[in-house]
């Protein structure tokens, strides 16, 4: 069973050379077809995803993907095309498809590659590539250990959605006709458990996961399983709350969602389309005055690290918010030109966006809140980026005297993001660094909770 995957290394020298050759071939074809400029990205990846449920293997999925995307420019007209077939014929046809579309798109002053002087020159090693290739047996063993730790914690853990291990290795090469050619090899491994707790009050499900670039950076299966079980158990006996205004504390794993709303609001494409509640906000106080939010693109081994963005532009550490004041937007070359500004190296998104942690851990934040709602789950998409109006389904815990009283569910929390940002009362020291946005728990002074 173990030797089932033949794993040609995804990111060896040969693959790098092969993908670079694909990029160069595509760029040359674009030139040949009359394009004045072009850019192309090529990627290959492989992985294994495995789930053990109730101690037995449920699914074993082998993934192996590849793709090529090209954007062509004919002066100020542009179009793009992609394919999963790397044969010369398919690559040529894909370039042709893009060129055909570009005949019909409109002239756009702002279209074009990134300015050459902004392209990354030195590409530091960000420690993102640590292939693992566990045998299937090993992957089963880890998933099973994580799930069984969860199931063994308490007899009220009655059912499971399983323990899952996933490992992924990818190689990407991006190039453009300014002569830029950059390569990124990266790995991502994760272990997760989702279990169901049950008592007379009904069933509750929760989960936990660990993720790292290197297998050694993963939390132990036991730790993941126990945390998943603890989270499911604590939700048993959830009640509704009556409708009220009160302080709301977002637990760290959810707090990053508030920052992702900020990113959506200050993204260039939202701004030039006037589809944001934060138009013309640079230099203005958008957050409470102690808040600092910054990007750390060059953190070694982190989930959001990148030396260059998806246009080849060099990334730079920077403050997005300092002393509560918005310092800049999140721009790619196109939206920057639209706004008569310079790209911030954010084509494709932000890189390790971090809200500066405070001194209080979660327990201290609960004390500080005194009476209010600790939110541990959000569902739904009730956020209007044009107005900032916010209304989402929530579950969590009612807190009095700084202590958790009982779990709550089937409630909504609502407000306006503008006010919520201004009224952040504290940021926790309990930073969740598993994602591209890193945040401790965030306490908001007041929101409307709707319930019974």
């Amino acid at each position: 069973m173990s030797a089932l995957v033949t794993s040609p290394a995804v990111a060896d020298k040969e693959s790098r050379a092969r993908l670079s050759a694909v990029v160069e071939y595509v760029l040359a074809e674009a030139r040949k077809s009359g394009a004045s400029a072009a850019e192309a990205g090529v990627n290959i990846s492989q992985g294994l995803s495995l789930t053990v449920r109730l101690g037995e293997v449920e699914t074993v999925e082998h993934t192996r993907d590849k793709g090529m995307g090209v954007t062509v420019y004919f002066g100020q007209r542009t179009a793009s095309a992609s394919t999963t077939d790397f044969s010369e014929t398919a690559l040529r046809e894909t370039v042709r498809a893009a060129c055909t579309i570009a005949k019909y798109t409109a002239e756009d002053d702002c279209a074009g590659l990134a300015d050459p002087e902004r392209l990354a020159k030195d590409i530091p090693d960000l420690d993102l590539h640590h292939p693992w290739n566990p045998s299937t047996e090993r992957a089963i063993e880890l998933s099973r250990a994580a799930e069984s730790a969860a199931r063994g914690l308490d007899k009220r853990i009655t059912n499971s959605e399983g323990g899952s291990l996933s490992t992924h290795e990818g190689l990407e090469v991006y190039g453009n006709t300014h002569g830029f050619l950059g390569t990124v090899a990266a790995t991502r491994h994760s272990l997760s458990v989702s279990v169901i707790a049950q008592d007379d009050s009904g069933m509750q499900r929760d989960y936990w996961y660990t993720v790292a670039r290197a297998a050694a950076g993963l939390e132990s299966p036991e730790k993941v399983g126990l945390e998943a079980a603890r989270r499911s158990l604590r939700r048993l006996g959830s009640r509704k709350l009556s409708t009220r205004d009160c302080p709301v504390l977002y637990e760290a794993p959810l707090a990053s969602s508030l920052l992702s709303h900020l990113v959506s609001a200050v993204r260039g494409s939202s701004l030039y389309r006037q589809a944001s509640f934060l138009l013309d906000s640079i230099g203005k106080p958008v957050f409470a005055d102690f808040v600092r939010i910054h990007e750390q693109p060059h953190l070694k081994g982190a989930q959001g690290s990148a030396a260059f963005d998806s246009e080849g532009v060099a990334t730079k550490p920077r403050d997005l918010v300092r002393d509560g004041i918005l310092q800049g937007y999140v721009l790619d070359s196109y939206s920057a030109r639209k706004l008569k500004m310079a790209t911030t190296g954010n084509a494709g998104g932000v890189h390790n966006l971090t809200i500066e942690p405070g001194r209080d851990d979660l327990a201290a934040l609960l004390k500080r809140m005194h009476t209010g709602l600790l939110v541990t789950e959000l569902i739904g998409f009730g956020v209007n980026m044009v107005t900032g109006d916010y209304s989402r389904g929530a579950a969590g815990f009612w807190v009095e005297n700084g202590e958790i009283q009982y779990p709550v569910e089937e409630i909504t929390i609502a407000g306006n993001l503008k006010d919520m940002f201004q009224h952040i009362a504290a940021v926790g020291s309990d930073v969740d660094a598993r994602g591209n946005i890193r945040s401790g728990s965030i306490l908001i002074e007041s929101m409307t909770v709707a319930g019974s």
Partner: protein
Amino acid sequence: MSTNMLTLARKSLLEPAGLGETELMRLIGQLMSGSVDYGDLYFQYSRHESWSLEEGKVKSGSHSIEQGVGVRAVAGEKTGFAYSDEIVLPALLEAAGAARAIVQQGAQARVPVAFRGEAGRQLYRPDDPLASLPDEAKVKLLERVEQEARAQDPRVKQVMASLASTHEVILVARSDGTIAGDVRPLVRLNVTVIVESNGRREQGSSGGGGRFTYDYFARADQALSYAREAVRQALVNLDAVEAPAGTMPVVLGPGWPGILLHEAIGHGLESDFNRKGTSAFAGKLGQRVASEQCTVVDDGTIPDRRGSLNVDDEGTTTQKTVLIENGILKGYMQDTLNARLMGVAPTGNGRRESYAHLPMPRMTNTYMLAGKYDPGEIIASVERGLYAVNFGGGQVDITSGKFVFSASEAYLIENGKITRPVKGATLIGNGPDVLTRVSMVGNDLQLDPGVGTCGKEGQSVPVGVGQPTLKIDSLTVGGTQG
């Protein structure tokens, strides 16, 4: 007629790769070792294009091609899966070897001697929508939509419109000898506008589509009607006041608000969660889960609908499945794996995003049948409540049963009359009992315009929803005015 689909699928998926029944048999033979109960091969070829307009110009367009084969081996509750984006025999044999490795080597299982074509349906024409209109005309269509939106009102500041289509051909070959093909067109047009008045900005969106070609949008000014609708919604929202907070009667409009059914009961009635006992609906078959007035079906057989399929992604002919009849839970939506493990027949709900994803039970078009009340009568019956007619997205926690869906156009009902528009708000409820509080079902059943996309475990598939106007006696409304 439907062998026609299979013939087309063979022609575009197997013939270019030099694959015939002998090779398919060999691949299935490779999959089926001792304890493998079931195996299948899923061939897919799809082309997709999109064109988008903003600031009065079609600034960008894109085209993509995706093709490959997913290979699956199932033994009891175990599934082994691998895929290849190269449709050539050696790569497929390797994928089959990887997929079957979930079980120990054993005696060769029985492999069928011949394939038998699945009947399938003929719900839409196997046309290629990308080729249904010259590129120039696609651009013109979007420009006309933009002009129509701007012509509605001077307060329209931004118009964004997109036109997209997919031409997809699939072929499924199964270890039980079933072979099926489908050619699935899908088109969609969307418009979003931003209006501004006295410094206040609001947005409105509209769109539609289905399994046909771009011709649909030219018919009866269909595309222009989306532009007008988006502007209408945005202007309504300019006058919206804060939404109420708390539990109150809620009247849902017909059509797209059927997202209620999709979230509140649809996902909870997918058979995987029920076989595993993780759904809040597990073990409730035959029990009352809705008021007597409620009959809800999942129907993959409606001609031309976005959620319809001639055969599902496991080659099973689609059907109309009764989920809830007069309030009693009647059935689940099944794929082959869960149907076999539960000892029932599949219902044609086995779906997957692509060859690179495993199939699972998914909805097609889920809707509630019409009742007896006049919509006006329903609104008149509410003293104070919410009337919600347009929605953004929704989500559900299958296990606790709690679900949300977010209104993007809603009004207060005061003393039986629709009064002021209110801002969008999220509505939250409990799936297993929300429909027990449905006290009036309208006679105005509508299906949505063809805009739904459902996500489950990271896989997106096109779906439809529908319902008549209906009244829920109490539901929590997540506004800010307590």
